[in-house]
């Protein structure tokens, strides 16, 4: 029962945060909305016994990623909502219809059974402790773990290429 209550509360928090993100005029509020949704999801992970994921969710997402977002919002300034002008009603209608139909389609698809996979290979009472995750991560997934070095290198190099150099480094600027 306690779990049901916890789930109910944080599901509402997550949805409220998401909707806040969606409707807030000011991007800072959007960021805060997303942040609360992420915290709510971290709680969900704990409910699902995924402790490491919950922890990383808080550290990486709520901590690093959202900080980066807020930082960029501060950097480029919160723009004036009026600058965007009124949004055509048709756009709102289309958006809500699309989102609604999408949700309905998924729910409809899952209405029979949400999880049909076989549990033959599973562990009966899975506990996502650091140890269990590490066994998997540094066992089967080692090579994948190593391959993320490419992703991170690209992120670093790409950011440098886009933002770090001054225009004078280019041939076209020098010419």
């Amino acid at each position: 029962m306690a779990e049901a209550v916890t789930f109910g509360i944080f599901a509402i928090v997550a949805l409220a945060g998401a909707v806040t993100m969606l409707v807030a005029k000011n991007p800072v509020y959007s960021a805060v909305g997303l942040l609360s949704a992420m915290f709510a999801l971290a709680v969900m992970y704990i409910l699902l016994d995924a402790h490491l994921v919950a922890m990383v969710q808080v550290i990486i997402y709520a901590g690093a990623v959202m900080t980066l977002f807020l930082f960029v919002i501060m950097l480029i300034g919160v723009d004036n909502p009026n600058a965007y002008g009124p949004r055509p009603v048709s756009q709102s209608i289309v958006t809500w219809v699309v989102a609604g139909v999408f949700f309905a389609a998924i729910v409809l698809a899952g209405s029979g059974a949400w999880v049909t996979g076989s549990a033959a290979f599973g562990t009966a009472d899975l506990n996502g402790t650091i140890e269990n995750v590490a066994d998997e991560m540094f066992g089967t997934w080692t090579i994948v773990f190593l391959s993320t070095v490419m992703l991170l290198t690209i992120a670093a190099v790409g950011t440098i290429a886009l933002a770090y150099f001054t225009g004078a480094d280019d041939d076209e600027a020098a010419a």
Partner: protein
Amino acid sequence: MSDIVTVDWYLILAAALFAIGVAGVLIRRNALVMFMSIELMLNSVNLTFVAVSKELGLIEGQVAALFVMVVAAAEVTVGLAIIVAIFRLRASANVDELAELKG
């Protein structure tokens, strides 16, 4: 897992969050908020992974969620760099103004 809150609820919540993310991409004109919506979508996918992982007793789902976070972090870095670079050129994050290329 208790009998009251089945995996279905988590997955429906994830679908709802994903749909809100889709709505955000369609309706928000601020590139940053569009991008936040995409992050929300990735989060809802993670919830799906973790919930299925618990249901089936397969730890892969949690590992996958962790990898998704790595990917998202890399994506955020580059995405924000692009937005900043655009902002330097035209001092606006309104994507509706970026429609020079069309036809």
